């Protein structure tokens, strides 16, 4: 029976990985225009981005999950076919990640010495070239450790998607626990999360060391 529970809960691993990967990818991508707006020289643009980030980060992920999953169908029930539990979960995780990633990017941007912009300017390079060829690559390197830590956190936070019925690790564990009246499935879920997070943390550390070696200052 125990063996069955292990394989039963394991059915959720793929969904957990999907939620994390797609949610993070969405956040990492959307975070870029957001940080550009957040650091723009035009006041209203900057305030809008700042307001957006504060609101998104101020509301717990689980509330975003409920809002995105249940909200649209209130206006038109047919929207339920778009906002499935899986799509809603990725959207909610992506939204919250975008706000967090924008702040991680902003911190990395600040870490790049102003003299790098100046060097580009003195060489006569167009601003956009300095931003994309000089600043961005250095920024990404600075952002890797914090981004990786955030992504690893998402592996665990994605468990909240079980509340809107996404068939991921915690959902299966909860179902198994209900039918067996035992806490064992949750131990198994915990083991699976650790099996996912520890190699990810190790890989992130390897990546960081590799990038660091290249820009040893």
């Amino acid at each position, binding site marked *: 029976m125990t063996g069955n529970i292990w394989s039963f809960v394991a059915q959720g691993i793929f969904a957990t990985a999907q939620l994390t990967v797609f949610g993070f990818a969405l956040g990492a991508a959307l975070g870029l225009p957001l940080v550009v707006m957040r650091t723009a020289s035009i006041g209203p643009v900057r305030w809008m981005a700042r307001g957006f980030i504060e609101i998104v980060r101020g509301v717990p992920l689980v509330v975003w999950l409920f809002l995105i999953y249940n909200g649209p169908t209130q206006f038109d029930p047919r929207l339920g076919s778009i906002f499935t539990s899986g799509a809603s979960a990725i959207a909610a995780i992506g939204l919250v990640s975008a706000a967090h990633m924008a702040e991680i990017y902003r911190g990395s941007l600040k870490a790049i010495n102003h003299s790098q912009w100046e060097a580009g*300017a003195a*060489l*006569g390079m*167009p601003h956009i070239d300095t931003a994309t060829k000089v600043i961005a690559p250095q920024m990404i390197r600075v952002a890797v450790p914090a981004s990786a830590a955030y992504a690893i956190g998402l592996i665990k936070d994605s468990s909240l998607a079980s509340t809107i019925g996404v068939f991921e690790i915690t959902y299966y564990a909860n179902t198994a626990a209900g039918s067996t009246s035992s806490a064992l499935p949750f131990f198994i879920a915990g083991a699976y999360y650790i099996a996912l997070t520890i190699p990810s943390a190790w890989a992130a550390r390897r990546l960081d060391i590799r990038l660091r070696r*290249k820009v040893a*200052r």
Partner: protein
Amino acid sequence: MTEHVPLDTKDLSAAVASPAIKLENVEKRFGDHVVLKQVSLTVDEGQVLALIGPSGAGKSTLLRCINLLERPTGGTITVDGVTVQADHKINARELAALRSRVGMVFQSFNLFPHMTALRNIALPQQRVLGRSKGEAEERAHTLLRRVGLADKALQYPGRCSGGQQQRIAIARALALDPKVMLFDEPTSALDPELGLEVLKVMRELADEGMTMAIVTHEMQFARDVSDHLVVMSDGGITEEGDPQEIFAAPQQQRTRDFLRAVLDRR
């Protein structure tokens, strides 16, 4: 009469050569604080100008006004025929035209740490002059050889000594074929020995006829290499003229104080 001949030819060449850099009444203020007070100076083509003076005198600010890294609040700047007026809004085209004529070397090198020496020198050529990658890298190799670093092409700046980094930075600026080179305390961040290798490259450049403006604390170098010396203090020019003459017999008390302070230290 013969002793006048060299003097005459010098005067003649000065009359023929157009100024490579011309600053007229350049002023820079931050609110009420005036950093540069109506500074005017001229550097002829092929001349080497040395700017010396105590810290806070405005030397670096003046140098940074030449390529508009610092926006002057008043006056006119002309480099190689391109004129920019401070009281007009400076558009991107003017800025690009001016900066394409001016190379700059910083105290802290400011190389791009995520690129090899070769890419540091090639990238700006590709982006600013539209050279092909092959062309830009070929020129980069040539310049690295010229500054004595042919073997460092594939090295990242972090793996190079300060003196090597500064020579890479000089090569990077030269790669854009500037008409004028600005040096902002190029050896101040270096150990004396490493500074020497940078000064050697600069001396060669001067000998080849590059127009240069150098902010420096290397008095010996200023005396030996420059054609024209400007002593600054409190945002203005205290004294200017022939370097040998000023070092031998400074006319202003402020210059005497400054030179005594730096020369006694050695």
